């Protein structure tokens, strides 16, 4: 019998409880800093991406054909390529091409790193394509009578959109928007590839110094789970707030949200 593939457990599990407990309950400064970055980059990128998505969708509904084409092409390009590739193209590719180099910007006491700018921009651009799709679906879900009623009163198209359609679409958008933000927070781990010290890359740095790979990335997983769980609370609150009498079905309670196998 050849013992080429001996189960590792035969040596005893190489698991350091106290290291895990320490890294979860007393995370290091750089790790916390990475966590904070993960949060604010996600929030910024989601906000900009939502606005961008609205702009793209409005372009796709324009009366002007070139604008419709441009919007459709944008969604096609962005959804058709991996975020990871987009990140490298925007941050490293553009610099290598000598086209644009993201440099640090100092605004009073705050320094915005070039890599952070590239990260927020790319994540927002990527998100805009998906948000455009979500907003499209929401607008399409609104009964056509709503638009006709506004038009019959004499509202021009832009006003109909602003006063009648978008407020109703916003409500429909909340659950998928929550899903998008959940994904966004986890997508920030991809930023490690352009060298942004967010939570995941910080963990990698700690790993190469300690080799406690399992404990460290379990910690990372716990922290992402914490972020997405907190967001679950916030989203539930937003949905309950938004749910007017127009909405027949109330949003699921947190317990259902956590354990009913929601897509994410």
């Amino acid at each position: 019998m050849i013992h080429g593939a001996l189960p590792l457990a035969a040596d005893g599990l190489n698991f350091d409880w106290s290291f895990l407990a320490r890294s979860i309950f007393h995370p290091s400064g750089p790790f916390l800093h990475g966590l904070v970055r993960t949060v604010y980059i996600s929030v910024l990128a989601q906000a900009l991406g939502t606005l961008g998505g609205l702009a793209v969708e409005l372009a796709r509904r324009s009366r002007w054909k070139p604008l419709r084409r441009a919007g459709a092409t944008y969604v096609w390009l962005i959804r058709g390529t991996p975020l990871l590739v987009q990140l490298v193209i925007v941050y490293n590719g553009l610099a290598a091409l000598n086209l644009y180099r993201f440099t640090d910007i100092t605004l009073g006491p705050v320094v915005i790193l070039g890599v952070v700018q590239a990260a927020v921009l790319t994540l927002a651009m990527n998100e805009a394509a998906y948000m455009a799709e979500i907003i499209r679906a929401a607008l399409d879900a609104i009964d056509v009578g709503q638009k006709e009623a506004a038009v019959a009163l004499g509202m021009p198209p832009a006003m109909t959109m602003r006063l009648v359609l978008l407020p109703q679409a916003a409500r429909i958008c909340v659950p998928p928007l929550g899903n998008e933000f959940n994904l966004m927070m986890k997508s920030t781990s991809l930023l490690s590839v352009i060298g942004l010290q967010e939570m995941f890359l910080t963990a990698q740095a700690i790993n190469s110094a300690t080799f406690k790979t399992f404990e460290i990335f379990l910690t990372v997983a716990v922290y992402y789970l914490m972020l997405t769980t907190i967001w679950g609370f916030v989203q539930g609150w937003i949905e309950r707030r938004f749910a007017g009498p127009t909405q027949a079905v109330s949003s699921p309670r947190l317990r259902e949200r956590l354990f009913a196998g929601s897509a994410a």
Partner: protein
Amino acid sequence: MTAAAPVLLEARDVVKRFGDRPAVDGVSMKIHRGETVVIIGPSGSGKTTFLRCLNHLEPIDAGDVLIDGTSVGYREGRRGPVELSPREVAVTRRRIGFVFQRFNLFAHLSALDNIALAPRNLLGLSRMDAEERARQLLARVGLADKEASRPAQLSGGQQQRVAIARALAMRPEVMLFDEPTSALDPEMVSEVIAVMRELAEEGMTMVVVTHEMGFARAAADRIVMMDAGRILEEGPAAEMISDPVHDRTRRFLTQIAH
């Protein structure tokens, strides 16, 4: 109303096709100021489509619709009529109120806001003035106590009355009603009809697509019978109901009267 009143709304040989099928096949009609015209006809006769052509909810394929001599939706181009931009059409539409079969109240707004929205944003009324106007209209349709209610909290009859108030808030010169009671439970029909009768008595110019012959008998100056996209016959309400020329009209009236 007397036929001497000036023509307010006029359809001239209006044609509307869906694909190859003409839904409205050359309909002309003059509606005088203060007149109430009821359009009847079997399902598929083109009456709803015709009504929607009157305020350009449906662009037309031929003919013209004029309000006070101004085309609704078109201007004269070098090679025939050119459709106006949605913005331009919108300005003309403010003169024409429209009430839908399915009410179409803005689902995200209270009854009051449903009514106040257009005057505030299109007529430049202040919030206070627009809400004051809305309150008066709600009182007029008997729903003063429902101003904070959302559409989903109102019965069909109440929703339709709010919808009428919403259209009236723009102070239109003519009101178009597209089967306003067809989506209502029977016990709610009368409350909507009562509001419409009052309007007619106050001298509002109205075009009403309906099968409510009670309303037609009481409020209509004229009844127009449509069939297969054309006007089959028309005449004063009493004559049309009691003594129609065409057998088709007679059979139709019997069918809906049962």
